[in-house]
Protein backbone atom coordinates (compact mmCIF):
# COMPACT_ATOMS: atom_id res chain seq x y z
CA UNK A 1 0.00 0.00 0.00
CA UNK A 2 1.18 3.48 -0.84
CA UNK A 3 1.48 6.09 1.89
CA UNK A 4 -1.19 8.76 1.97
CA UNK A 5 0.26 12.02 0.70
CA UNK A 6 0.32 14.70 3.36
CA UNK A 7 -2.52 17.20 2.93
CA UNK A 8 -2.35 20.51 4.72
CA UNK A 9 -5.15 21.56 7.10
CA UNK A 10 -6.54 24.44 4.99
CA UNK A 11 -6.79 22.08 2.02
CA UNK A 12 -8.63 19.55 4.13
CA UNK A 13 -11.04 22.18 5.37
CA UNK A 14 -11.82 23.27 1.80
CA UNK A 15 -12.27 19.65 0.73
CA UNK A 16 -14.66 18.94 3.59
CA UNK A 17 -16.66 22.08 2.81
CA UNK A 18 -16.91 21.09 -0.86
CA UNK A 19 -18.02 17.60 0.13
CA UNK A 20 -20.72 18.98 2.43
CA UNK A 21 -22.04 21.30 -0.28
CA UNK A 22 -22.08 18.44 -2.79
CA UNK A 23 -23.78 16.02 -0.42
CA UNK A 24 -26.37 18.47 0.90
CA UNK A 25 -28.92 17.87 -1.91
CA UNK A 26 -28.55 14.13 -1.37
CA UNK A 27 -29.33 14.54 2.32
CA UNK A 28 -32.33 16.75 1.51
CA UNK A 29 -33.75 14.23 -0.97
CA UNK A 30 -33.30 11.34 1.44
CA UNK A 31 -34.97 13.21 4.29
CA UNK A 32 -37.79 14.40 2.02
CA UNK A 33 -38.39 10.82 0.92
CA UNK A 34 -38.70 9.74 4.54
CA UNK A 35 -41.31 12.43 5.19
CA UNK A 36 -44.32 11.44 7.24
CA UNK A 37 -46.48 14.29 5.86
CA UNK A 38 -48.78 14.48 2.83
CA UNK A 39 -46.64 16.79 0.72
CA UNK A 40 -43.07 17.13 -0.41
CA UNK A 41 -41.69 19.50 2.18
CA UNK A 42 -38.42 20.26 3.84
CA UNK A 43 -37.73 19.93 6.68
CA UNK A 44 -39.93 16.81 6.79
CA UNK A 45 -42.89 16.59 9.14
CA UNK A 46 -41.64 13.55 11.04
CA UNK A 47 -40.03 10.46 9.63
CA UNK A 48 -41.75 7.37 8.22
CA UNK A 49 -41.36 4.74 5.52
CA UNK A 50 -44.78 5.64 4.14
CA UNK A 51 -43.58 7.03 0.82
CA UNK A 52 -40.89 4.45 0.42
CA UNK A 53 -43.59 1.82 0.57
CA UNK A 54 -45.68 3.90 -1.82
CA UNK A 55 -42.78 3.89 -4.26
CA UNK A 56 -42.20 0.16 -3.92
CA UNK A 57 -45.87 -0.60 -4.54
CA UNK A 58 -46.31 1.84 -7.41
CA UNK A 59 -46.23 0.02 -10.78
CA UNK A 60 -45.41 3.31 -12.54
CA UNK A 61 -42.37 4.08 -10.42
CA UNK A 62 -41.07 0.53 -10.17
CA UNK A 63 -41.51 0.10 -13.91
CA UNK A 64 -39.66 3.34 -14.55
CA UNK A 65 -36.90 2.32 -12.17
CA UNK A 66 -36.43 -1.01 -13.93
CA UNK A 67 -36.65 0.62 -17.35
CA UNK A 68 -33.93 3.14 -16.44
CA UNK A 69 -31.80 0.36 -15.04
CA UNK A 70 -31.98 -1.72 -18.23
CA UNK A 71 -31.48 1.36 -20.41
CA UNK A 72 -28.41 2.41 -18.42
CA UNK A 73 -27.02 -1.11 -18.47
CA UNK A 74 -27.32 -1.52 -22.24
CA UNK A 75 -26.10 2.02 -22.94
CA UNK A 76 -23.12 1.44 -20.64
CA UNK A 77 -22.27 -1.82 -22.33
CA UNK A 78 -22.30 -0.28 -25.80
CA UNK A 79 -20.49 2.92 -24.92
CA UNK A 80 -17.85 1.07 -22.90
CA UNK A 81 -16.95 -1.11 -25.87
CA UNK A 82 -17.12 1.70 -28.43
CA UNK A 83 -15.46 4.24 -26.15
CA UNK A 84 -12.58 1.91 -25.32
CA UNK A 85 -11.91 1.13 -28.96
CA UNK A 86 -12.13 4.80 -29.88
CA UNK A 87 -9.82 5.86 -27.05
CA UNK A 88 -7.21 3.24 -27.95
CA UNK A 89 -7.28 4.37 -31.57
CA UNK A 90 -7.20 8.07 -30.70
CA UNK A 91 -4.32 7.74 -28.28
CA UNK A 92 -2.20 5.85 -30.82
CA UNK A 93 -2.92 7.76 -33.98
CA UNK A 94 -0.79 10.77 -34.73
CA UNK A 95 -2.89 11.91 -37.69
CA UNK A 96 -4.71 15.21 -37.86
CA UNK A 97 -7.95 13.31 -38.47
CA UNK A 98 -7.63 11.70 -35.02
CA UNK A 99 -7.40 15.09 -33.31
CA UNK A 100 -10.51 16.26 -35.11
CA UNK A 101 -12.34 13.01 -34.31
CA UNK A 102 -11.50 13.36 -30.64
CA UNK A 103 -13.11 16.78 -30.53
CA UNK A 104 -16.10 15.44 -32.39
CA UNK A 105 -16.59 12.51 -29.99
CA UNK A 106 -16.38 14.80 -26.97
CA UNK A 107 -18.99 17.16 -28.41
CA UNK A 108 -21.98 15.65 -26.51
CA UNK A 109 -20.34 16.69 -23.23
CA UNK A 110 -20.28 20.39 -24.09
CA UNK A 111 -23.42 20.42 -26.19
CA UNK A 112 -26.54 21.17 -24.07
CA UNK A 113 -28.50 17.93 -23.65
CA UNK A 114 -31.63 19.69 -24.86
CA UNK A 115 -29.95 20.60 -28.14
CA UNK A 116 -28.69 17.06 -28.67
CA UNK A 117 -32.12 15.59 -27.86
CA UNK A 118 -33.87 18.00 -30.16
CA UNK A 119 -31.39 17.37 -32.95
CA UNK A 120 -31.79 13.60 -32.66
CA UNK A 121 -35.56 13.88 -32.49
CA UNK A 122 -35.75 16.06 -35.58
CA UNK A 123 -33.37 13.71 -37.36
CA UNK A 124 -35.41 10.62 -36.45
CA UNK A 125 -38.69 12.22 -37.47
CA UNK A 126 -37.58 13.81 -40.73
CA UNK A 127 -35.70 10.73 -41.93
CA UNK A 128 -38.60 8.53 -40.77
CA UNK A 129 -36.31 5.60 -39.99
CA UNK A 130 -38.50 4.33 -37.18
CA UNK A 131 -36.28 5.59 -34.35
CA UNK A 132 -38.49 8.42 -33.11
CA UNK A 133 -39.88 7.59 -29.67
CA UNK A 134 -38.50 4.07 -29.76
CA UNK A 135 -36.15 2.21 -27.42
CA UNK A 136 -33.33 1.99 -30.00
CA UNK A 137 -33.68 5.72 -30.66
CA UNK A 138 -33.47 6.49 -26.94
CA UNK A 139 -30.56 4.10 -26.55
CA UNK A 140 -28.63 5.86 -29.31
CA UNK A 141 -29.13 9.14 -27.46
CA UNK A 142 -27.83 7.65 -24.24
CA UNK A 143 -24.83 6.07 -25.95
CA UNK A 144 -23.93 9.44 -27.48
CA UNK A 145 -24.19 11.13 -24.10
CA UNK A 146 -22.27 8.50 -22.14
CA UNK A 147 -19.49 7.42 -24.43
CA UNK A 148 -17.39 10.60 -24.12
CA UNK A 149 -16.95 9.68 -20.45
CA UNK A 150 -15.52 6.30 -21.40
CA UNK A 151 -13.23 7.93 -23.96
CA UNK A 152 -11.99 10.39 -21.36
CA UNK A 153 -11.19 7.82 -18.67
CA UNK A 154 -9.69 5.26 -21.03
CA UNK A 155 -7.59 7.92 -22.76
CA UNK A 156 -6.28 8.95 -19.36
CA UNK A 157 -5.27 5.36 -18.61
CA UNK A 158 -3.51 5.09 -21.99
CA UNK A 159 -1.25 8.06 -21.22
CA UNK A 160 2.24 6.70 -20.71
CA UNK A 161 1.18 3.22 -21.77
CA UNK A 162 4.36 1.51 -22.87
CA UNK A 163 3.87 0.25 -26.42
CA UNK A 164 6.89 -2.02 -26.12
CA UNK A 165 4.78 -4.24 -23.82
CA UNK A 166 2.55 -5.02 -26.77
CA UNK A 167 5.54 -5.40 -29.05
CA UNK A 168 7.17 -7.80 -26.61
CA UNK A 169 3.99 -9.87 -26.66
CA UNK A 170 3.96 -9.82 -30.45
CA UNK A 171 7.51 -11.06 -30.80
CA UNK A 172 6.74 -13.80 -28.26
CA UNK A 173 4.17 -15.06 -30.75
CA UNK A 174 0.95 -13.19 -30.00
CA UNK A 175 -1.30 -11.98 -32.81
CA UNK A 176 -2.26 -8.29 -32.67
CA UNK A 177 -5.62 -9.23 -31.15
CA UNK A 178 -4.13 -11.56 -28.53
CA UNK A 179 -1.52 -8.97 -27.58
CA UNK A 180 -4.24 -6.37 -27.19
CA UNK A 181 -6.53 -8.61 -25.13
CA UNK A 182 -3.88 -10.11 -22.87
CA UNK A 183 -1.71 -7.07 -22.32
CA UNK A 184 -3.23 -3.71 -23.19
CA UNK A 185 -6.79 -4.43 -22.15
CA UNK A 186 -5.71 -5.88 -18.83
CA UNK A 187 -3.56 -2.86 -18.04
CA UNK A 188 -6.17 -0.24 -18.90
CA UNK A 189 -8.97 -2.15 -17.14
CA UNK A 190 -9.16 0.36 -14.24
CA UNK A 191 -9.77 3.16 -16.75
CA UNK A 192 -12.42 1.11 -18.51
CA UNK A 193 -14.21 0.31 -15.24
CA UNK A 194 -14.16 3.95 -14.22
CA UNK A 195 -15.58 4.93 -17.63
CA UNK A 196 -18.31 2.32 -17.32
CA UNK A 197 -19.34 3.63 -13.87
CA UNK A 198 -19.51 7.16 -15.21
CA UNK A 199 -21.52 6.00 -18.20
CA UNK A 200 -23.98 4.11 -16.01
CA UNK A 201 -24.49 7.02 -13.62
CA UNK A 202 -24.86 9.56 -16.41
CA UNK A 203 -27.35 7.39 -18.30
CA UNK A 204 -29.36 6.58 -15.20
CA UNK A 205 -29.82 10.24 -14.36
CA UNK A 206 -30.08 11.59 -17.92
CA UNK A 207 -33.04 13.93 -18.37
CA UNK A 208 -32.76 16.64 -21.04
CA UNK A 209 -31.87 14.48 -24.01
CA UNK A 210 -34.26 11.76 -22.82
CA UNK A 211 -37.09 14.29 -22.82
CA UNK A 212 -37.26 14.23 -26.62
CA UNK A 213 -36.68 10.54 -27.14
CA UNK A 214 -38.82 8.64 -24.60
CA UNK A 215 -41.17 5.94 -25.73
CA UNK A 216 -44.78 6.87 -24.76
CA UNK A 217 -45.83 5.14 -21.50
CA UNK A 218 -42.26 3.92 -20.90
CA UNK A 219 -40.71 6.79 -18.99
CA UNK A 220 -37.26 6.36 -17.46
CA UNK A 221 -37.07 7.21 -13.75
CA UNK A 222 -36.05 10.90 -13.98
CA UNK A 223 -38.95 11.56 -16.38
CA UNK A 224 -41.38 9.61 -14.20
CA UNK A 225 -40.34 11.63 -11.15
CA UNK A 226 -40.81 14.88 -13.04
CA UNK A 227 -44.22 13.89 -14.40
CA UNK A 228 -45.42 12.70 -11.00
CA UNK A 229 -44.42 15.98 -9.33
CA UNK A 230 -46.31 17.97 -11.94
CA UNK A 231 -49.60 16.31 -10.97
CA UNK A 232 -49.27 15.70 -7.25
CA UNK A 233 -46.64 17.17 -5.02
CA UNK A 234 -46.10 13.85 -3.24
CA UNK A 235 -42.89 12.63 -1.61
CA UNK A 236 -43.00 9.40 -3.70
CA UNK A 237 -40.64 11.05 -6.18
CA UNK A 238 -38.18 11.78 -3.38
CA UNK A 239 -38.48 8.17 -2.21
CA UNK A 240 -37.66 7.11 -5.77
CA UNK A 241 -34.68 9.46 -5.53
CA UNK A 242 -33.46 7.54 -2.49
CA UNK A 243 -33.41 4.35 -4.54
CA UNK A 244 -31.72 6.08 -7.47
CA UNK A 245 -29.01 7.41 -5.15
CA UNK A 246 -28.66 3.98 -3.55
CA UNK A 247 -28.17 2.31 -6.94
CA UNK A 248 -25.58 4.83 -8.08
CA UNK A 249 -23.73 4.60 -4.78
CA UNK A 250 -23.84 0.82 -4.90
CA UNK A 251 -22.55 0.64 -8.46
CA UNK A 252 -19.71 3.00 -7.58
CA UNK A 253 -18.71 1.02 -4.51
CA UNK A 254 -18.99 -2.33 -6.25
CA UNK A 255 -16.94 -1.22 -9.24
CA UNK A 256 -14.35 0.48 -7.08
CA UNK A 257 -14.06 -2.77 -5.14
CA UNK A 258 -13.63 -4.74 -8.35
CA UNK A 259 -10.92 -2.46 -9.60
CA UNK A 260 -8.97 -2.28 -6.37
CA UNK A 261 -9.42 -6.03 -5.86
CA UNK A 262 -7.54 -6.51 -9.10
CA UNK A 263 -4.82 -4.23 -7.78
CA UNK A 264 -4.63 -6.21 -4.58
CA UNK A 265 -4.46 -9.39 -6.62
CA UNK A 266 -1.47 -8.06 -8.49
CA UNK A 267 0.48 -7.18 -5.38
Amino acid at each position, binding site marked *: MRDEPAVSWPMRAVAILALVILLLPVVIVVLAGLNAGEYLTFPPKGLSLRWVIAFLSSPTFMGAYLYSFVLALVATLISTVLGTLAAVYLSRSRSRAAAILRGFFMLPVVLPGVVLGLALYVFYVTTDIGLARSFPGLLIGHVLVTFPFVIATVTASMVGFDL*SLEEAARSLGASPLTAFMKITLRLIAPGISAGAIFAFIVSFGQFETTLFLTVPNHEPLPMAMYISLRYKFEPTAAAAGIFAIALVALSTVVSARLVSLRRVFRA
Partner: protein
Amino acid sequence: MSDIRLVNLTKSYGEGNAVSDVDLAIEEGEFFSLLGPSGCGKSTTLRMIAGFVRPTSGRILIGGDDITALPPERRDIGIVFQNYAIFPHMNVAENIAFGLKLRKLPKAEIARRIEDSLRQVGLSGYETRYQRQLSGGEQQRVALARVLVTEPRILLLDEPLSALDKGLREEMKFWIKDLQKKLKITTIYVTHDQDEALTMSDRIGVMAKSRIVQVGTPQEIYERPKTLFVTSFIGHSNVVDVAVRRVADGMAVVALGGSELASRAGAGLAEGAAAKLVVRPENILIGTALREGDARLPATVVSETYQGAIVRYRLAVGDQEIVAERQNQAHVERFAPGTAVTIGWAPDWSETLLA
Protein backbone atom coordinates in the same frame (compact mmCIF):
# COMPACT_ATOMS: atom_id res chain seq x y z
CA MET B 1 19.96 -21.93 -40.46
CA SER B 2 19.68 -18.59 -38.76
CA ASP B 3 22.09 -16.34 -40.57
CA ILE B 4 20.77 -12.86 -41.31
CA ARG B 5 21.01 -10.93 -44.55
CA LEU B 6 19.95 -7.33 -44.82
CA VAL B 7 19.69 -6.25 -48.43
CA ASN B 8 19.66 -2.50 -49.12
CA LEU B 9 17.43 -1.95 -46.13
CA THR B 10 16.04 1.58 -46.08
CA LYS B 11 13.51 3.37 -43.89
CA SER B 12 12.46 6.93 -44.54
CA TYR B 13 10.20 9.03 -42.35
CA GLY B 14 9.13 11.83 -44.65
CA GLU B 15 11.98 14.21 -44.01
CA GLY B 16 15.15 12.17 -44.65
CA ASN B 17 16.09 8.57 -43.94
CA ALA B 18 16.31 6.93 -40.56
CA VAL B 19 18.15 4.02 -42.19
CA SER B 20 19.78 4.14 -45.63
CA ASP B 21 20.89 1.20 -47.77
CA VAL B 22 22.03 -1.06 -44.97
CA ASP B 23 23.63 -4.15 -46.46
CA LEU B 24 24.80 -6.72 -43.95
CA ALA B 25 25.50 -10.41 -43.69
CA ILE B 26 25.50 -11.79 -40.16
CA GLU B 27 26.62 -15.35 -39.67
CA GLU B 28 24.87 -18.07 -37.75
CA GLY B 29 25.80 -17.94 -34.08
CA GLU B 30 27.52 -14.60 -34.44
CA PHE B 31 27.38 -11.81 -31.85
CA PHE B 32 27.02 -8.72 -34.00
CA SER B 33 26.86 -5.20 -32.58
CA LEU B 34 25.40 -2.14 -34.19
CA LEU B 35 27.36 0.74 -32.73
CA GLY B 36 26.73 4.41 -33.34
CA PRO B 37 25.74 7.73 -31.80
CA SER B 38 22.19 8.61 -30.80
CA GLY B 39 19.77 8.96 -33.70
CA CYS B 40 21.94 7.15 -36.26
CA GLY B 41 19.25 4.53 -36.96
CA LYS B 42 20.32 1.54 -34.83
CA SER B 43 16.94 0.96 -33.21
CA THR B 44 15.10 1.47 -36.46
CA THR B 45 17.28 -1.19 -38.10
CA LEU B 46 16.62 -3.58 -35.22
CA ARG B 47 12.89 -2.88 -35.26
CA MET B 48 12.75 -3.61 -38.98
CA ILE B 49 14.37 -6.99 -38.32
CA ALA B 50 11.91 -7.66 -35.47
CA GLY B 51 9.01 -6.68 -37.70
CA PHE B 52 7.73 -3.59 -35.89
CA VAL B 53 8.81 -1.18 -38.59
CA ARG B 54 8.04 -1.81 -42.23
CA PRO B 55 11.06 -1.06 -44.43
CA THR B 56 10.56 1.57 -47.12
CA SER B 57 12.66 -0.63 -49.37
CA GLY B 58 15.05 -3.53 -49.16
CA ARG B 59 14.77 -7.08 -47.87
CA ILE B 60 15.46 -9.10 -44.75
CA LEU B 61 16.44 -12.75 -45.03
CA ILE B 62 16.89 -15.25 -42.24
CA GLY B 63 18.43 -18.58 -43.13
CA GLY B 64 17.70 -17.74 -46.75
CA ASP B 65 13.95 -17.13 -46.16
CA ASP B 66 12.64 -13.69 -47.05
CA ILE B 67 10.79 -12.52 -43.92
CA THR B 68 10.35 -8.89 -44.97
CA ALA B 69 6.57 -9.22 -45.17
CA LEU B 70 6.01 -11.45 -42.12
CA PRO B 71 4.38 -10.02 -38.97
CA PRO B 72 6.55 -10.06 -35.80
CA GLU B 73 4.76 -13.06 -34.28
CA ARG B 74 5.72 -15.26 -37.22
CA ARG B 75 9.40 -14.35 -37.42
CA ASP B 76 10.63 -16.43 -34.51
CA ILE B 77 12.83 -13.58 -33.35
CA GLY B 78 13.29 -12.68 -29.69
CA ILE B 79 13.79 -9.08 -28.67
CA VAL B 80 14.81 -7.51 -25.37
CA PHE B 81 13.92 -3.84 -25.05
CA GLN B 82 15.86 -1.12 -23.32
CA ASN B 83 13.15 -0.90 -20.63
CA TYR B 84 12.75 -4.72 -20.53
CA ALA B 85 8.95 -4.53 -21.02
CA ILE B 86 8.11 -7.00 -18.26
CA PHE B 87 4.32 -7.43 -18.21
CA PRO B 88 3.39 -5.68 -14.95
CA HIS B 89 0.17 -7.64 -14.40
CA MET B 90 1.90 -11.02 -14.52
CA ASN B 91 4.45 -12.48 -12.16
CA VAL B 92 7.84 -13.74 -13.32
CA ALA B 93 6.60 -17.26 -14.03
CA GLU B 94 3.59 -15.97 -15.98
CA ASN B 95 5.83 -13.63 -17.95
CA ILE B 96 8.06 -16.50 -18.97
CA ALA B 97 5.09 -18.76 -19.67
CA PHE B 98 3.52 -16.20 -22.01
CA GLY B 99 5.25 -17.35 -25.18
CA LEU B 100 5.03 -21.02 -24.21
CA LYS B 101 1.26 -20.89 -23.65
CA LEU B 102 0.82 -19.32 -27.08
CA ARG B 103 2.71 -22.30 -28.47
CA LYS B 104 0.19 -24.55 -26.72
CA LEU B 105 2.83 -26.60 -24.90
CA PRO B 106 1.59 -29.04 -22.26
CA LYS B 107 1.41 -27.66 -18.70
CA ALA B 108 4.14 -29.92 -17.33
CA GLU B 109 6.48 -28.96 -20.16
CA ILE B 110 5.83 -25.26 -19.50
CA ALA B 111 6.53 -25.67 -15.79
CA ARG B 112 9.75 -27.53 -16.54
CA ARG B 113 10.92 -24.91 -19.01
CA ILE B 114 10.16 -22.04 -16.63
CA GLU B 115 12.23 -23.72 -13.97
CA ASP B 116 15.12 -24.40 -16.35
CA SER B 117 15.17 -20.91 -17.76
CA LEU B 118 15.03 -19.26 -14.34
CA ARG B 119 17.94 -21.43 -13.26
CA GLN B 120 19.79 -20.44 -16.42
CA VAL B 121 19.48 -16.73 -15.63
CA GLY B 122 20.14 -17.27 -11.92
CA LEU B 123 16.68 -16.32 -10.69
CA SER B 124 15.36 -19.57 -9.24
CA GLY B 125 12.79 -18.79 -6.56
CA TYR B 126 11.65 -15.57 -8.23
CA GLU B 127 8.57 -17.18 -9.84
CA THR B 128 5.91 -15.25 -7.95
CA ARG B 129 7.54 -11.83 -7.97
CA TYR B 130 6.06 -8.96 -9.93
CA GLN B 131 7.89 -6.43 -12.06
CA ARG B 132 7.93 -3.74 -9.38
CA GLN B 133 9.54 -6.17 -6.95
CA LEU B 134 12.54 -6.66 -9.27
CA SER B 135 15.70 -4.59 -9.65
CA GLY B 136 16.76 -3.39 -13.10
CA GLY B 137 19.27 -6.21 -13.46
CA GLU B 138 16.71 -8.81 -12.40
CA GLN B 139 14.14 -7.42 -14.82
CA GLN B 140 16.67 -7.74 -17.56
CA ARG B 141 17.33 -11.38 -16.70
CA VAL B 142 13.60 -12.06 -16.71
CA ALA B 143 13.26 -10.36 -20.09
CA LEU B 144 16.08 -12.53 -21.43
CA ALA B 145 14.61 -15.69 -19.90
CA ARG B 146 11.18 -14.88 -21.34
CA VAL B 147 12.68 -14.57 -24.81
CA LEU B 148 15.16 -17.46 -24.67
CA VAL B 149 12.65 -19.96 -23.27
CA THR B 150 10.82 -19.89 -26.63
CA GLU B 151 14.08 -20.81 -28.38
CA PRO B 152 14.00 -18.12 -31.08
CA ARG B 153 16.26 -18.28 -34.11
CA ILE B 154 17.58 -14.77 -33.53
CA LEU B 155 18.11 -12.66 -30.43
CA LEU B 156 17.86 -8.87 -30.70
CA LEU B 157 19.00 -6.63 -27.86
CA ASP B 158 18.36 -2.88 -27.91
CA GLU B 159 20.71 -1.12 -25.48
CA PRO B 160 19.92 -3.65 -22.74
CA LEU B 161 22.53 -2.31 -20.34
CA SER B 162 21.93 1.41 -20.62
CA ALA B 163 19.43 1.51 -17.74
CA LEU B 164 21.79 -0.21 -15.30
CA ASP B 165 24.41 1.36 -13.05
CA LYS B 166 28.04 1.06 -13.97
CA GLY B 167 29.05 -1.86 -11.78
CA LEU B 168 26.12 -4.00 -12.84
CA ARG B 169 26.71 -3.04 -16.46
CA GLU B 170 30.24 -4.46 -16.32
CA GLU B 171 28.98 -7.69 -14.78
CA MET B 172 26.04 -8.13 -17.19
CA LYS B 173 28.29 -7.46 -20.20
CA PHE B 174 30.23 -10.66 -19.58
CA TRP B 175 27.18 -12.57 -18.37
CA ILE B 176 25.22 -11.89 -21.57
CA LYS B 177 28.24 -12.69 -23.73
CA ASP B 178 28.80 -16.01 -21.94
CA LEU B 179 25.13 -16.94 -22.24
CA GLN B 180 25.16 -16.11 -25.95
CA LYS B 181 28.27 -18.21 -26.48
CA LYS B 182 26.77 -21.15 -24.63
CA LEU B 183 23.50 -21.01 -26.58
CA LYS B 184 25.23 -20.18 -29.88
CA ILE B 185 22.30 -17.97 -30.78
CA THR B 186 22.69 -15.43 -33.58
CA THR B 187 22.55 -12.09 -31.80
CA ILE B 188 22.32 -8.47 -32.85
CA TYR B 189 23.20 -6.07 -30.10
CA VAL B 190 22.47 -2.36 -30.38
CA THR B 191 24.57 0.04 -28.34
CA HIS B 192 26.14 3.46 -28.37
CA ASP B 193 28.80 2.30 -25.90
CA GLN B 194 32.07 1.39 -27.59
CA ASP B 195 33.30 -0.59 -24.57
CA GLU B 196 30.28 -2.89 -24.73
CA ALA B 197 30.67 -3.35 -28.47
CA LEU B 198 34.42 -4.02 -28.28
CA THR B 199 34.14 -6.43 -25.35
CA MET B 200 31.15 -8.49 -26.43
CA SER B 201 31.09 -8.64 -30.21
CA ASP B 202 32.41 -11.04 -32.78
CA ARG B 203 31.94 -8.22 -35.26
CA ILE B 204 30.80 -4.62 -35.06
CA GLY B 205 28.92 -2.54 -37.60
CA VAL B 206 29.55 1.15 -36.96
CA MET B 207 26.63 3.36 -37.98
CA ALA B 208 26.60 7.08 -38.64
CA LYS B 209 23.78 9.21 -40.00
CA SER B 210 21.57 6.28 -41.07
CA ARG B 211 24.38 4.35 -42.78
CA ILE B 212 26.77 1.56 -41.90
CA VAL B 213 30.22 3.09 -42.26
CA GLN B 214 32.44 0.16 -41.30
CA VAL B 215 32.04 -3.50 -40.46
CA GLY B 216 34.78 -5.49 -38.79
CA THR B 217 36.03 -7.37 -35.77
CA PRO B 218 36.59 -5.28 -32.63
CA GLN B 219 40.30 -5.32 -33.38
CA GLU B 220 39.82 -4.11 -36.94
CA ILE B 221 37.43 -1.39 -35.83
CA TYR B 222 39.75 -0.20 -33.09
CA GLU B 223 43.06 -0.52 -34.88
CA ARG B 224 42.08 0.13 -38.47
CA PRO B 225 39.24 2.67 -38.50
CA LYS B 226 38.44 3.49 -42.10
CA THR B 227 37.04 6.98 -41.65
CA LEU B 228 37.65 9.93 -39.40
CA PHE B 229 34.20 9.40 -37.94
CA VAL B 230 35.01 5.88 -36.77
CA THR B 231 38.35 7.14 -35.49
CA SER B 232 36.75 9.79 -33.37
CA PHE B 233 33.86 7.60 -32.21
CA ILE B 234 35.98 4.67 -31.01
CA GLY B 235 38.44 5.55 -28.28
CA HIS B 236 40.69 8.60 -28.39
CA SER B 237 43.02 9.40 -31.24
CA ASN B 238 45.40 12.13 -32.23
CA VAL B 239 44.22 13.61 -35.49
CA VAL B 240 46.76 16.00 -37.02
CA ASP B 241 46.97 17.84 -40.33
CA VAL B 242 49.60 16.50 -42.70
CA ALA B 243 50.63 16.97 -46.33
CA VAL B 244 50.74 13.81 -48.46
CA ARG B 245 54.07 13.38 -50.26
CA ARG B 246 53.81 9.93 -51.82
CA VAL B 247 51.38 7.01 -51.81
CA ALA B 248 52.48 3.49 -52.76
CA ASP B 249 51.55 -0.09 -51.79
CA GLY B 250 48.98 0.96 -49.23
CA MET B 251 51.52 3.14 -47.42
CA ALA B 252 51.78 6.91 -47.50
CA VAL B 253 54.66 9.24 -46.77
CA VAL B 254 53.45 12.46 -45.18
CA ALA B 255 55.06 15.65 -43.98
CA LEU B 256 54.51 16.75 -40.38
CA GLY B 257 56.47 19.49 -38.60
CA GLY B 258 59.34 19.33 -41.13
CA SER B 259 59.75 15.53 -40.89
CA GLU B 260 58.65 12.88 -43.36
CA LEU B 261 56.77 9.97 -41.85
CA ALA B 262 55.45 6.67 -43.16
CA SER B 263 51.93 5.50 -42.29
CA ARG B 264 49.20 3.32 -43.68
CA ALA B 265 47.21 5.05 -46.44
CA GLY B 266 43.42 5.29 -46.21
CA ALA B 267 41.10 4.84 -49.18
CA GLY B 268 41.30 7.44 -51.94
CA LEU B 269 44.47 9.04 -50.64
CA ALA B 270 46.64 10.71 -53.32
CA GLU B 271 49.68 12.95 -53.42
CA GLY B 272 48.88 16.54 -52.48
CA ALA B 273 45.50 15.70 -50.90
CA ALA B 274 44.43 17.39 -47.67
CA ALA B 275 44.76 14.64 -45.11
CA LYS B 276 44.81 13.82 -41.42
CA LEU B 277 47.24 11.52 -39.72
CA VAL B 278 45.61 9.37 -37.05
CA VAL B 279 47.56 7.76 -34.24
CA ARG B 280 46.37 6.62 -30.82
CA PRO B 281 48.05 8.08 -27.70
CA GLU B 282 49.08 4.64 -26.43
CA ASN B 283 51.05 3.94 -29.62
CA ILE B 284 53.29 6.97 -29.38
CA LEU B 285 56.80 6.20 -28.20
CA ILE B 286 59.22 8.73 -26.72
CA GLY B 287 63.01 8.78 -26.74
CA THR B 288 64.80 5.48 -26.14
CA ALA B 289 61.54 3.53 -26.39
CA LEU B 290 61.62 4.00 -30.16
CA ARG B 291 62.59 1.03 -32.30
CA GLU B 292 64.32 0.53 -35.61
CA GLY B 293 62.00 1.46 -38.52
CA ASP B 294 59.65 3.68 -36.47
CA ALA B 295 58.51 6.99 -37.91
CA ARG B 296 60.32 9.72 -35.96
CA LEU B 297 60.00 13.44 -35.45
CA PRO B 298 61.19 16.05 -32.96
CA ALA B 299 58.80 17.41 -30.37
CA THR B 300 58.76 19.43 -27.16
CA VAL B 301 57.07 18.26 -23.96
CA VAL B 302 54.34 20.76 -23.07
CA SER B 303 53.01 19.04 -19.98
CA GLU B 304 53.18 15.80 -18.07
CA THR B 305 50.13 14.51 -16.20
CA TYR B 306 50.48 11.66 -13.75
CA GLN B 307 47.39 9.42 -13.81
CA GLY B 308 48.55 6.40 -11.82
CA ALA B 309 48.67 3.53 -14.26
CA ILE B 310 49.59 5.85 -17.12
CA VAL B 311 51.44 9.10 -17.60
CA ARG B 312 50.01 11.48 -20.14
CA TYR B 313 52.15 13.89 -22.17
CA ARG B 314 51.09 16.81 -24.28
CA LEU B 315 53.69 17.27 -27.02
CA ALA B 316 54.19 20.22 -29.37
CA VAL B 317 54.98 19.26 -32.95
CA GLY B 318 55.37 22.39 -35.09
CA ASP B 319 52.20 24.35 -34.32
CA GLN B 320 50.14 21.21 -33.57
CA GLU B 321 49.77 19.16 -30.45
CA ILE B 322 49.95 15.40 -29.96
CA VAL B 323 48.95 13.48 -26.84
CA ALA B 324 50.97 10.45 -25.78
CA GLU B 325 50.18 7.98 -23.03
CA ARG B 326 52.92 5.85 -21.53
CA GLN B 327 52.46 2.98 -19.12
CA ASN B 328 53.80 3.93 -15.72
CA GLN B 329 56.08 0.91 -15.27
CA ALA B 330 59.57 0.17 -14.00
CA HIS B 331 62.33 1.40 -16.33
CA VAL B 332 60.00 3.69 -18.31
CA GLU B 333 61.63 7.06 -18.77
CA ARG B 334 59.77 10.23 -17.60
CA PHE B 335 60.04 13.62 -19.30
CA ALA B 336 59.73 17.02 -17.70
CA PRO B 337 57.87 19.88 -19.45
CA GLY B 338 60.14 21.86 -21.78
CA THR B 339 62.32 18.88 -22.68
CA ALA B 340 63.13 18.45 -26.37
CA VAL B 341 62.46 14.81 -27.32
CA THR B 342 62.18 12.53 -30.29
CA ILE B 343 58.81 10.90 -30.61
CA GLY B 344 57.49 8.35 -33.06
CA TRP B 345 55.45 5.26 -33.73
CA ALA B 346 55.37 2.09 -35.79
CA PRO B 347 54.17 3.17 -39.28
CA ASP B 348 51.70 0.29 -39.33
CA TRP B 349 50.00 1.66 -36.19
CA SER B 350 49.17 4.99 -37.76
CA GLU B 351 46.97 5.82 -40.68
CA THR B 352 46.51 8.78 -42.99
CA LEU B 353 42.89 9.44 -43.95
CA LEU B 354 41.31 11.88 -46.36
CA ALA B 355 40.17 14.96 -44.47
